[in-house]
């Protein structure tokens, strides 16, 4: 197999050195690792915890959706059953008993009442009381068990359904991401230009693009990225004092930025005595 030329080996060695953390980084990182193992993982940006929370969110959404489908299904079945029974009653010429006075005693739990008669038994028409849920046809003993609060009875109440639907519709399946604005695109364009100039070695041009971003978007969404890049470019231009001043102020100005740790390393080598 062909061996690599010396120049290739040297280039790869330089790349490996650039990708290796500085000496002593492992020992420093071990302290942080111990802390993490003792305290448990932070909520973000760790992959495992993010995955867990995403799984939990999906499970909750699925459970809510299943509950909604069940409630709507039961409500629809109950309303349909009731309407169908009424229609059959009217078609068969059955008299529907008017509502009883409110003072009339309602059947208590466990009280035995007359079970609905079979439909083909015309001699004993079933008594339907409006407002009452239908007795299950399969109840053999005729013992009527009052519906559980908030369950089938509530779902069968047609007045409640319109209130449920909007609530269910308002439950988003996932948060809607904010749309990209043209301002953000303009910011990104400027910073991308600065980054390209810097990669090409034209740090002055990079600085010009960054200064323009600072003028046009002093408190823009990408202000932390701009300031970080400005510090880097200044450091590379040998203007270490200015770079360090920006880096020092970065943590205070952008306390929540994930770029703080990066900012702390800019031109840091020259801080060492």
């Amino acid at each position, binding site marked *: 197999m062909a061996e*690599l030329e010396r120049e290739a080996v*040297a280039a790869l060695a330089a*790349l490996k050195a650039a990708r290796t953390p500085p000496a002593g980084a492992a020992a420093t990182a*071990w302290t942080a690792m111990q802390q993490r193992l003792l305290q448990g993982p932070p909520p973000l940006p*760790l992959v495992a915890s993010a995955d867990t929370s995403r799984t939990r969110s999906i499970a909750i959404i699925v459970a809510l959706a299943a509950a909604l489908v069940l409630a709507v299904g039961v409500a629809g079945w109950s309303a349909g059953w009731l309407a169908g029974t009424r229609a059959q009653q009217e078609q068969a010429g059955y008299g529907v008993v008017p509502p009883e006075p409110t003072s009339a005693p309602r059947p208590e739990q466990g009280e035995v009442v007359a079970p609905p008669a079979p439909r083909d038994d015309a001699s004993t028409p079933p008594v339907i009381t409006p407002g009452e849920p239908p007795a299950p046809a399969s109840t053999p003993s005729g013992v009527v068990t009052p519906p559980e609060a908030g369950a089938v009875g509530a779902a069968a109440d047609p007045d409640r359904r319109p209130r449920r639907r909007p609530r269910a519709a308002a439950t988003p399946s996932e948060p809607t991401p904010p749309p990209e604005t043209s301002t953000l695109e303009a910011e990104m364009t400027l910073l991308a230009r600065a980054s390209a100039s810097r990669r090409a070695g034209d740090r002055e041009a990079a600085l010009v693009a960054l200064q323009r971003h600072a003028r046009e978007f002093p408190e823009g969404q990408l202000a932390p990225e701009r300031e*970080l890049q400005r510090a880097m470019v200044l450091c590379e231009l040998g203007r270490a004092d200015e770079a360090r001043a920006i880096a020092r102020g970065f943590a205070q100005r952008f306390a929540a930025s994930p*770029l703080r740790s990066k900012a702390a390393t800019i031109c840091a080598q020259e801080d060492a005595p």
Partner: protein
Amino acid sequence: MRPPTPPGPTGGPSVAEGGGTPRLAVVAGGAIDFRALFLEHYDFVYRALAHFGMPQASLDDATQEVFAVVHRRLADYDGRTAMRGWLWGIARNVASSMQRGEQRARRRLELVADAEPVAGPDETLAQRQQIALARACLEALDEQQREVFVLAELEGFSAPEIAQTLDVKLNTVYSRLRIAREKFQRALARARTRAQRGHHG
């Protein structure tokens, strides 16, 4: 194929000494000393994540994440794969997950710096040129060739170790490595020609 070894007294797995892993920390009872493992392989995992394209600003967090996974799964490690191969696989998964989950953040980071470490002021111009050259030549390889090439040429894995790590046949490793080296050399020659033209032009 070695059978899985039972967990050791510290909760970690017992690992037969060697296991394809040089200088694997083994304490009394044969259990892995997690601290020694961390310190020994920290640089390797950090580099592996850089090879997988993690931005420099995320490398510290990602390396911690890899070792957090290692800590959780240490009991599952049965020694059948060399430790570095096992770590490489975890690093690949962590890099992939973090890159997927943080695409938006990464786009913002890319506005600041390349995924690669930016050359510091203490690095010489020659070093910067070599780093840029190596990166450009690696770009000439496809993903599978690059992974084999990086494991062999940068990390010093043997061909059997690579085959085990990537779960591919040994012949596949040799084939990919041969093609990768040829492509790398050709890319290097092209870069050299361009540079010479630049000097003369």
